[in-house]
């Protein structure tokens, strides 16, 4: 048997767990060891990545979901940390009537990604020096992510993370979102304020401070628009979310 054929047989054994696949490797107790190692490592990796989801679902339900995921999505990345990339979408299909489940998973995944994301120096509030506010564009640090939420998954996640009793799952107001980013080395998150999501999106699209104020003015009026944009910028600076303005 060629090496390629042997490795494909081995893969088939690990993925399917069928006796015929084990027989192709000669059978014996060693094949079972590899089968066990394969599944145990993947379940452990998912449990490490989705720690708050484990607490919310309970270990048994989580492991059942993980086992189904392993059957459906054999790993392809060279790093185990990437294995959970599709798990959020997968649990959404398993718990279609409990949308907080997938959203807790999404927060687990996102916080993990932000934790090891690219480093960036945040602009200190006192270092802000803008020559021309008409054209100035706000650039946030690369870790900033916006997660739309349909439930109170953020409150549940926070309670689980601090070993408090989590609230019951509830639907959130339409348009709710949370912001996740890294302050120095630690991931942080909070709910987005009104208009904050829009201002972040417009800034990311390269629109300047004046253009953003103008767009806000369409719904808030001119004075409130400038105040809102300024307040958001001040908050982002204070929270270490801004990389540069200019």
């Amino acid at each position, binding site marked *: 048997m060629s*090496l390629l054929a042997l490795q*494909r047989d081995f893969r088939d054994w690990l993925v399917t767990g069928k006796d015929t696949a084990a027989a192709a490797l*000669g059978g014996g107790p060693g094949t079972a060891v590899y089968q066990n190692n*394969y599944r145990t490592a993947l379940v452990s990796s998912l449990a490490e990545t989705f720690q708050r989801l484990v607490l919310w679902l309970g270990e048994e339900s989580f492991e059942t979901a993980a086992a189904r995921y392993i059957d459906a999505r054999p790993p392809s990345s060279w*790093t185990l940390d990437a294995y959970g990339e599709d798990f959020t979408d997968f649990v959404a299909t398993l718990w279609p009537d409990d949308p907080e489940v997938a959203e807790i998973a999404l927060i687990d995944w996102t916080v993990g990604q932000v*934790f090891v994301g690219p*480093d960036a120096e945040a602009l200190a509030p006192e270092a802000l020096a803008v020559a021309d506010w008409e054209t100035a564009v706000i650039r946030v640090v690369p870790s900033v992510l916006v997660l739309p939420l349909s439930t109170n998954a953020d409150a549940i996640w926070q309670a689980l993370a601090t070993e408090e009793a989590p609230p019951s799952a509830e639907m959130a107001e339409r348009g709710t979102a949370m912001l996740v980013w890294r302050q120095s*080395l630690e991931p942080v998150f909070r709910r987005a304020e009104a208009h904050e999501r829009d201002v972040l999106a417009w800034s990311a699209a390269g629109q300047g401070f004046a253009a953003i104020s103008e767009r806000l003015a369409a719904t808030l009026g001119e004075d409130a628009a400038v105040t809102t944009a300024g307040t958001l910028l001040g908050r982002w600076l204070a929270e270490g979310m801004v990389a540069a303005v200019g």
Partner: protein
Amino acid sequence: MTEQLTGFGLGMRRPHYRSYIDGTAPVDFIEVISENFMIPGGKPLDTLMKARRNYPLALHGVSMSIGSADGLRDDYLKELRRLVGMMEPAVVSDHLCWTRIDGFNSHDLLPLPYTEEALALVCRNIDRAQEALGRRMLLENPSSYIAFPGAMSEWEFLAEMTRRTGCGLLLDVNNIHVSAVNHGFAAADYLAGIPMDAVGQIHLAGHVQGEHLLIDTHDQPVPDEVWAVYRAAMELAGPVPTMIERDDNIPELEELCAELDVARAISADTAGKRIAA
């Protein structure tokens, strides 16, 4: 600054990070799993950077898949090269095994058949990895639970592999013991067949007795049987940088350092005997 590894080290694991950052852990070098730090940024890399200032470093990989029949991955080599450039480790190692085929990654160290075909393939992949990294690698002998029919023993395969590629060996004496028991060969025969001048580092670890086989778990203290293989290896190899791998059921740092003292004593004892001889 790229140092040589010397002396006695430990795998740097999360419960003991503070001691490595502070430089208070009484070890001569540290080893980390390369893939845990092949990431864009953040706290893990910051921690390793700080520890690296205090200790020479060995980068030990688990996902290069040097035995993959369909070759190595460019993106993996690129990321590892980046980490090597950042950390300037004294040693870069991985395992004689395969983990990946056709885009499937098992995340386990799977055994190879010791055939001429596999030897040629492994040597080709080692050549490519050493070229991509711009340096010599060490390859670790695996523990295994299946043995395929082959043209040569594992030690013959390792000897020929080092001769053809110039790579070094990371000799895991726990793996020798585990595989010797599982497959019914003598550890002494294994050691006698290893080109000891190619051994650049030694791993020590513990294992458990499974229902039918010894299982390489890295969650137990180094047992007497493994210390015996270590003593025999040191008698043949001379002073080789040695470390303990403990990946699960991790005790206090002091307990691991006490185990490391056993290795120091064996090393000193075997050195004395070599001088006397």
